[in-house]
């Protein structure tokens, strides 16, 4: 089941999302549409709820109010479909130090349900210039290399919507360029992306969501 092949569900719509964490309001009434082939940049000061919004769209966090839809289908009734649509790279690296670089990718590929075959791993490695590190234990990687390994996960299984939380942190300029290449390729394949970032990426973004600083007002229940 390749999610790219099913055009009905390519457009992601969030309708009046409200996020409450620890009984504090982070953001409210946030609506946006992400169409296939477009990247949306998420900006706002620290603590404005960028990571919360990404986790919410990923489905790791439940919105207090609001709905999310693919095409005209709500995400709620079919969470497995939603999970197959989103590729999430958070600010934690999800790298197992006991595995080699290639093993990390091999196990993620199997768990994420990507197509089998060594060429998938090879392509993911070379997309982020990790090929020469393939057999190195991941505990020896630098912060930037771990970050690249984390980003390489996106190339393992096709996902419609990439959710990237500060993807450029600790990357050098060449690695950022490789990330931009991957993103452009993904958008060219009618994929879409929601990216929280402080450094502008050289990718055509169709929209920007500006999050206001959270007031962290207490909620009366």
């Amino acid at each position, binding site marked *: 089941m390749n999610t790219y092949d099913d055009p009905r569900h390519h457009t992601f719509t969030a309708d009046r999302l409200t996020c409450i*964490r620890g009984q504090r309001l982070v953001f409210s009434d946030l609506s946006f549409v992400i169409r296939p082939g477009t990247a949306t940049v998420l900006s706002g000061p620290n603590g404005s709820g960028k990571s919360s919004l990404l*986790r919410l769209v*990923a*489905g*790791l*966090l*439940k919105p207090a109010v609001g709905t999310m839809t693919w095409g005209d289908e709500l995400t709620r009734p079919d*969470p*497995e479909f939603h*999970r*197959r649509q*989103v590729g*999430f790279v*958070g*600010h*934690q*690296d*999800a*790298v*197992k130090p*006991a*595995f080699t670089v290639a093993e990390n990718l091999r*196990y*993620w590929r*199997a*768990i*994420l*349900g990507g197509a089998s075959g060594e060429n998938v791993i090879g392509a993911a490695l070379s997309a982020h210039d990790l090929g020469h590190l393939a057999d190195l234990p991941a505990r020896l990687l630098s912060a930037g290399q771990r970050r690249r390994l984390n980003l390489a*996960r996106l190339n393992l299984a096709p996902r419609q919507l990439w959710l990237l939380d500060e993807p450029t942190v600790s990357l050098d300029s060449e690695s950022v360029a490789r990330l931009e290449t991957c993103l452009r390729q993904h958008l060219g394949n009618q994929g879409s992306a929601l990216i929280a970032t402080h450094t502008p990426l050289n990718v055509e973004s169709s929209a920007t969501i500006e999050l206001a600083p959270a007031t962290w007002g207490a909620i009366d229940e």
Partner: protein
Amino acid sequence: MSEFFALIRRDLVLARRQGSATTSVAVFFTLTVTLFPLGIGPESALLGTVASGVIWVAALLATMLSLDRLFQSDFEDGSLDVIALSPLPLELVALAKTLAHWLSTGLLLVALSPLLGLLMQLDGTAYLTLIAAMALGTPTLSLFGSIGAALTVGVKRGGVLVSLLVIPLYIPVLIFGVGAVDAAADGLTQRPHLLMLAALFLFSVVLSPIASAAALRLNLE
């Protein structure tokens, strides 16, 4: 379903590479039981009476010792976010990880129990019953334990908390596990005790993945 087995394989390979947790369970179990003949004297009559209780209590404590790594390390490095977004429902994720936990710890306890049974002067049917009861009971220990591990996944050094949560759930396993061996030693039928252990296993195999997944969802927010 291949994602399910991939997750089990990954956890088993990780357990083997990191070794220390599996070894510490085996060493703790063996040493604790070995201390009893030294502490209370080698009279076979006395040892035979307390043997089943000692072995079961040591198995309970050894299992508890290993619970914190069930979800904790994946939670801390962000891997649990990625696993939660795999096509697998979180219930099956919890079941796969629990199964891997049993294969890397509980199975070891079952394998060591014939040796410790000999050491503690169990003989005849009581000896065989101990092995059967351990094989039936230790999966339940891992399953109930996963609920405690999932609830405390966000708590640093949650060991004491896990014990408080899990010990009440372990008591039925202890009662019927010891009961089976004692019944066999007294020449009574061990069947009802073993059936109760089997019932507890079936109960926990249904309940524990649901409860663990619910607890993990709370902690991923």
